[in-house]
């Protein structure tokens, strides 16, 4: 039995890689690729008549395989299926770090899952509140209700858009400039930031189009996403590169934090660093940059 540490609600999640929970060959060594989180899938990747088998496989994987620092999230079946309740029982009993709610459309969906998770924690003697939640928005209704979903539970750590289903609802297809989902991504980001949780972009499914993939990752970073869902290990490295802070950003963040500490002792609220105005509003961003840099092995100081 591998005891997993208590999941952290806020941690680095640049990459989340999907893995079919029914395929032993995939899940046994999923941690070697170095993604921040793996997403063991009980939903779309598993055929309808193998849902039961996938749960047995998932349970023993969670209990036996040492995933180390890699976060282990499970995507459960939708609330409109007969599967989700047993999915939640196995996730909690196995000690998954978190559960991804597929096709989430309202705060009520989150609360329904939360109640089942709480009942399962009770049943299996798992610390109450341990199991985290995230929601996948896959429909126009989910996007419109993004804020109530994001703020529905203390267990919520993030929200993600699921492009395949969403584009189908919207009668569109992936566009090179991302215009097909521009509003939806924007609305979801706003909701996530307003609720104080993380926000993840959808998968890029055309593995032969590396240029298209890179363009989308750069846009994700520019829009303010925390990370991206992936379907193949070869996509990990580029996302980590893009989401890592640059040397210049790290130096700048250090200067800002040092100056802020000195100035606030002296009773000064607003000041300049390298000719730019800095006040308290810049501090969380600078701290975030240094925490990210530390996670990427690029910062060893003691400012955060």
């Amino acid at each position, binding site marked *: 039995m591998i005891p997993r540490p208590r999941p952290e609600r806020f941690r680095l999640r640049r990459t989340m890689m999907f893995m079919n929970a029914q395929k*032993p060959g995939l899940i046994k060594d999923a941690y070697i690729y170095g993604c921040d989180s793996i997403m063991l899938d009980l939903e779309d990747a598993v055929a309808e008549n193998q849902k039961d088998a996938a749960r047995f496989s998932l349970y023993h994987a969670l209990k036996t395989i040492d995933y180390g620092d890699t976060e282990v999230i499970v995507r459960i079946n939708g609330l409109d299926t007969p599967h989700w309740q047993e999915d939640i029982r196995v996730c909690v009993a196995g000690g998954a770090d978190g559960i991804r709610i597929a096709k989430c459309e309202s705060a009520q969906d989150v609360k329904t899952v939360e109640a089942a998770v709480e009942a399962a924690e009770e049943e299996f003697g798992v610390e109450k509140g341990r199991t985290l939640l995230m929601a996948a928005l896959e429909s126009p209704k989910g996007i419109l209700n993004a804020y109530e979903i994001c703020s529905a539970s203390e267990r919520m750590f993030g929200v993600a858009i699921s492009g395949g289903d969403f584009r189908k609802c919207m009668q569109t297809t992936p566009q090179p400039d991302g215009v097909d989902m521009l509003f939806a991504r924007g609305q979801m980001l706003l909701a996530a930031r307003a609720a104080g949780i993380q926000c993840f972009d959808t998968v890029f499914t055309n593995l032969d189009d590396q240029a298209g993939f890179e363009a989308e990752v750069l846009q994700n970073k520019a829009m303010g996403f925390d990370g991206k869902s992936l379907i193949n290990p070869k996509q990990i490295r580029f996302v980590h590169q893009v989401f890592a802070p640059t040397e210049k950003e790290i130096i700048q963040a250090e200067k800002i934090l040092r100056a802020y500490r000195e100035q606030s002792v002296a009773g000064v609220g607003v000041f300049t660093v390298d000719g730019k105005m800095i006040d308290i509003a810049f501090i969380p961003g600078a701290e975030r940059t240094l925490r990210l840099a530390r996670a990427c092995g690029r910062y060893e100081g003691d400012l955060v």
Partner: protein
Amino acid sequence: MEILKPAMAGTLESSDAQVTVEPGSDGIQLTLSSSVMNQYGRQIKATVLETLKRLEVTNAQVTVVDKGALDCTLKARVECAVFRSCGQSQANIPWGGAVR
């Protein structure tokens, strides 16, 4: 658990195992073939028998075609086949109890 009807779980893909259980009346009759028989045959057999014992299966014909599955996969496939044969594989599995 009593094996009520034939049931199967798993695939013939690499790192997996295909387990079939059928009703029997003369204890456990295990037929095992494995791509790693020489190195791991004994251990696979022990894992399968131990899992059946934990599920209190006393009479069954069990066929395992192993393709290099880890212990945790073997257990999962045996359990799933047994629960399927009893028509109980879909809900209220005793996670952490008989399944562990």
